[in-house]
């Protein structure tokens, strides 16, 4: 089907759709639950409390340095499940395809999804495909939902954040957003940078193993970046968060691209990083645990939680002045996740 393009018939429920499901999705995602091809997947007893998450992906362009919409969609929901303190087990995948998408592109994307799922030992057990007329969607949108099982008690959650907690970031800021922006043809610049899209299940497992209940909350700074994440933490826990700008890891090429585009790395999306709020006495162990994994090698303590003013995020700047880190005001950027 390499020279073909997706047609409305591929979503009609008839023979064309059957071929698509058998030749592509079932072949690539193959596992006992999916292969039954029932209306839904029947899953075994997982042995613990469940975490359930969903995310939709509309990134433009579909392919960018370091990944494509496929591995982004799988890793994105895996990471949401990890941030709840769970081990991801099963995913669903929903495809909304614009008529005319090259089948070869879809093959590559589905292949990337299969590889990402396998790498994280997660199964894609159920799915759905719709095709809409040309102009009614932008080539391909993917929704993934997932279920994970929680092994640690109490599970992390932003309501458990306390004054005194340290905030730890697992690596450099802004790599994904800038890699995607650099790929947009009209921006006319290219950076050697790659998206950081990656599953974080091993990182969260090591963190929980090292610190257990000392991990008060975890979240991945995707859309809205670190700024949005800190504001969400500060608001839901009713605390003040103080960041230290000198501690924030930012690659020089990301800093330079941000300068050129008038962007702040604090607001740029990441797809393979996490922020943990950790009890002060567990912070050192947490940092060591993160640094012991390749995805956490550049982990750093970037700030702390104070009683202070509920909902405020303040940052000590590189010069020693203070600024507020606000929620992003509005979205003028291209779609990056």
């Amino acid at each position, binding site marked *: 089907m390499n020279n073909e393009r997706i047609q409305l018939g591929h979503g009609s429920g008839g023979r064309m759709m059957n071929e698509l499901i058998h030749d592509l999705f079932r072949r690539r995602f193959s596992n006992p639950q999916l292969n039954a091809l029932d209306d839904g997947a029947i899953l075994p007893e997982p042995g613990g409390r469940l975490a359930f998450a969903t995310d939709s992906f509309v990134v433009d362009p579909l392919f960018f340095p370091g990944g494509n919409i496929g591995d982004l969609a799988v890793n994105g929901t895996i990471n949401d499940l990890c941030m709840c303190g769970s081990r991801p087990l099963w995913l669903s995948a929903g495809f909304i395809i614009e008529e005319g998408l090259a089948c070869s592109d879809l093959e590559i994307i589905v292949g990337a999804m299969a590889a990402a799922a396998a790498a994280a030992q997660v199964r894609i057990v159920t799915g759905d495909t719709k095709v809409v007329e040309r102009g009614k969607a932008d080539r391909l949108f993917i929704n993934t939902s997932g279920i994970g099982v929680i092994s640690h008690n109490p599970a992390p959650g932003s309501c458990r954040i*306390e*004054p*005194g907690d*340290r905030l730890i970031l697992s690596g450099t800021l802004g790599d994904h957003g800038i890699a995607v922006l650099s790929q947009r043809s*009209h*921006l*006319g610049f290219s950076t050697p940078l790659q998206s950081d899209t990656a599953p974080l299940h091993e990182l969260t497992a090591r963190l929980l193993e090292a610190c257990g209940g000392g991990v008060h909350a975890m979240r991945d700074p995707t859309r809205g970046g670190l700024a949005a994440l800190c504001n969400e933490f500060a608001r839901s826990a009713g605390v003040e968060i*103080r*960041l*230290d700008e*000198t*501690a924030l890891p930012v690659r*020089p090429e990301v*800093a*330079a691209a941000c*300068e050129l585009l*008038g962007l*702040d790395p604090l607001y740029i999306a990441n797809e393979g990083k996490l922020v943990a709020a950790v009890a*002060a006495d567990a912070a050192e162990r947490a940092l060591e645990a993160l640094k012991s994994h390749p995805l956490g090698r550049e982990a750093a*303590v*970037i*700030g*702390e939680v*104070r*009683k*202070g*003013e509920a909902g*405020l995020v*303040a940052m*000590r*700047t*590189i*010069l*020693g*002045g*203070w*600024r*507020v880190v*606000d929620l992003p*005001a*509005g979205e*003028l950027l291209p779609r990056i996740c």
Partner: protein
Amino acid sequence: MNLAPFRDPAIAARLIEETHRVQSRPWVIMETCGGQTHAILRLGLDQLLPRGLELVHGPGCPVCVTPAPLIDHAIALAARPEVILATFGDMMRVPGTASTLFAARAAGGDVRMVYSALDALELAHTNPDREVVFFAIGFETTAPGSAQAVMRARSQGVANFSLLSAHVLVPAAIRYLLEDPGNRVQGYLAAGHACAVLGGQPYEELAARFHVPIVITGFEAIDLLRGILRVVQMLEAGEARVENAYERVVHHEGNLQAQDAIWNVFMSRGREWRGIGLIPASGLTLKPEYSAWNAQLKFGPPAETSTEPGICISGLVLQGLKKPPECPAFGRECTPGHPLGAPMVSAEGACAAYFSYQRMPEGRDDKSPGSEGAA
């Protein structure tokens, strides 16, 4: 370019210390560019300077000073079925009299965000059956790009492209502020990017005539601190020269090619600045020989005047006469989500900068995060 040396905290600390040492009495300095205003507040730099050194924020935010009737005109053009209206992203949320380009797009207008004037010309190539209007915003920094697009449209015979010019010139605005009897600004940081085009020359006469030091200044921490220190040093010594503290980007004569492009295509004339008023010879309009690419002539003149909401003091803010928190609407009726005036909307507006970075409760100690245990 590696920017790390221009953000070096140790160098910054030395420059701040030197400014404290040099300053003997109060001075008022204006940074003219919105990018500088944002950098100053983002770095918390104003908190580190001597108490008597007041930084006031100038009119250097091009979308903030674009008059509402011109935005209304762009919105009206966007509503025409044959028109694709292209402009920079910054302009999309700025309110005209009653609406914005985002709202115009939601209402069915074909409004496209572009990153350069040549992108808009490309749209004209790829949509030969449509009329592409480029709403050209910006100071002398972006004007050469617009000029190039118009020259190329003429040489390639592209008839379905035109320019709605909102280009304005920084030196004319500084002259206007200096001539104002209420002016309290004693020294200026000239906008580095704009000077990269016109150079330092247009400021020589202003510095001499009004006896004010003017320092061409960049946007990084070290750039800003060097510019501020030079202005303070000259003020303390009673000197009034134009100096360049942004040598890595700006040459004294500017970019001659870019100047040629501007003056080949545009001529200067009086232009209304939003909230401020008519400033002589401050706007760029297409020369008669480029009339075929002038959207104002192609589609007819804009609608008549408009008024700002009564409570908004954006005109005073843009002239450096008031600071955003002095506005009764600041942070209450007026926020980035519900802006009353353009400086609260734009990525370079002074009100947005204060709202984003400086709604800090009083009494912040300077202990670094991580130095204190549980509160």
